[in-house]
C-alpha cells in the first residue's frame, strides 16, 4: 500500500473520470468527491489510484468496476488500485461537489469544530436543504450510508441527510 501525498491526474483523462459517479450519490462524480488520487497513462495502460471514503464503503468496489468500464468504452485498458494513505477527508470534496450535494438534498459537511457541535447537539448550524432554516436537529448520528447523519428541520418539518465531516 503506497503513500501518495499529492493528487496527480493526467488532464487528458479528466473527461472520462467525470463520467463515473458515486453509485449511492449519483450527482457526485468521483473527481468532485476527491477519491481519485492519481490517474496516469503508463504504456498502453491507465493506472487509477482511488482512496475509500469509509473503510467499509461498499461503493468502492462498484466505483472500481465503473472506472474500468468507462475507460474501456474510450479504448483504454485501466487498472484500479486502492490506497489508504493519506486517508480521505471531506475537505477533498470540491466546491462543485458541495453544491451538487446541496442541490440533491444533502447538507454538505461543516468544518470539524462546527461538525462536533452539531453532532453533540450543542448548536444548530446545519442548514435545511429544503427551506434553508438552521432550526434543525440531529435525529441520528448514523444515516442511510456510512458517510451521512440524519437530520430534521423543525421549521418545514422535512427530514434530510447531512454529510458528516471526516478529518
Amino acid at each position, binding site marked *: 500500500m503506497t503513500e501518495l501525498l499529492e493528487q496527480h491526474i493526467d488532464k487528458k483523462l479528466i473527461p472520462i473520470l467525470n463520467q463515473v459517479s458515486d453509485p449511492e450519490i449519483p450527482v457526485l462524480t468521483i473527481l468532485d468527491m476527491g477519491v481519485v488520487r492519481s490517474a496516469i497513462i503508463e504504456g498502453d495502460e491507465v493506472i487509477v489510484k482511488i482512496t475509500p471514503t*469509509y*473503510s*467499509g464503503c461498499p461503493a468502492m468496489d462498484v466505483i472500481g468496476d465503473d472506472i474500468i468500464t468507462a475507460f474501456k468504452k474510450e479504448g483504454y485498458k485501466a487498472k484500479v488500485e486502492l490506497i489508504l494513505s493519506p*486517508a480521505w477527508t471531506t475537505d477533498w470534496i470540491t466546491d462543485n461537489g458541495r453544491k451538487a450535494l446541496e442541490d440533491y438534498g444533502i447538507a454538505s459537511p461543516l468544518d470539524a469544530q462546527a461538525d462536533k457541535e452539531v453532532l453533540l447537539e450543542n448548536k444548530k448550524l446545519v442548514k435545511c436543504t429544503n427551506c434553508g432554516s438552521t432550526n434543525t436537529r440531529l435525529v441520528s448520528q*448514523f444515516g442511510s450510508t*456510512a458517510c451521512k447523519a440524519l437530520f430534521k428541520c423543525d421549521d418545514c418539518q422535512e427530514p434530510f441527510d447531512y454529510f458528516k465531516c471526516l478529518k
Partner: protein
Amino acid sequence: MNNNNLYKYILGIADNTLILGQRLGELCGHGPSLETDIACTNISLDMLGQARNYFQYAAKLKGKNYTEDDIAFLRKEHEYLNVLLVEQPNTDFAYIITRQFLFDVYHLLFLNSLKNSNDLTLSAIANKSIKEVSYHYRFSSDWIKRLGDGTEESHQRIQKAIDDLWTYTDELFHQTEGDKTMINEGIGVDTLKLKEEYYKRVNEILQEATLNVPESKYFQKGGKDGIHTEHLGFLLADLQYMQRTYPNMQW
C-alpha cells in the same frame, strides 16, 4: 523479521473488528429502534471494512494463493485471536452498548498508537480507521450516559451489563509472546502503556452516567491465545455457513 509473528499480530487486530462487526451485523433488522438499528449496522460496516484492510494485508504476507476470504472464513475456532469481550452475545441493548463502549475506548487508544507503527500499512489502516472509530465512541458513550442517567430500569440494566462484561476488560492489555516481539520491533502497540488511560476514561464516563465502577479484580482471558468462550463457535457457524456449505463459492 519473522513474517509469522507479524501475520499473527495482524490477525489479532483484524479478528477483533471482524467478530464485533459480525455481532453488530446480527442486529440488522432487529435493533430496538430504527435509528439504533441503522447506527449499529453502520458501525458493523466500518468494522468489517477495517477487517478487510487487515486481512488483505495478511493474505499478501501469507503469499501463495491466499485471499482475505480464506483467512476470514476458513479458520477453526481456536485459530481466531480476538479478545473475549467482542464475541459476547447481544443479550440486550444494554449489553450491546456496554460491549461497544468498553471496546471503543480501547480501540481509539490502540489505533492512536498504531498510527506510529514502523509498519507503514498498519499505520495507514490505523489512520483511516481512527476517524471512523471516533464516531463509534461518540455513539456508545452517549448511550452509556442516556441509559445510566435514564430511568430506574435502564440504569439497573446497564449497570448489570457493566458488572458482567467488566471481567473481559483486562484482557485488552494482555500481551502474548508474539505481541512482545512485535512491540520490540516497533511494529506493535505496547498495550500496557494504555491501561491507565483506558480505565481513567471509562471511569469518567461511568461516573457521568451515575454508574458504579465495578471493583472486581477477577478477570478472564484466553481469546488472544485462541481459547474462547462458548459463544464464538455459534457465531462462527453463522459467519462461515456459506463457505462451509458451498466451498469456494464467490459472491
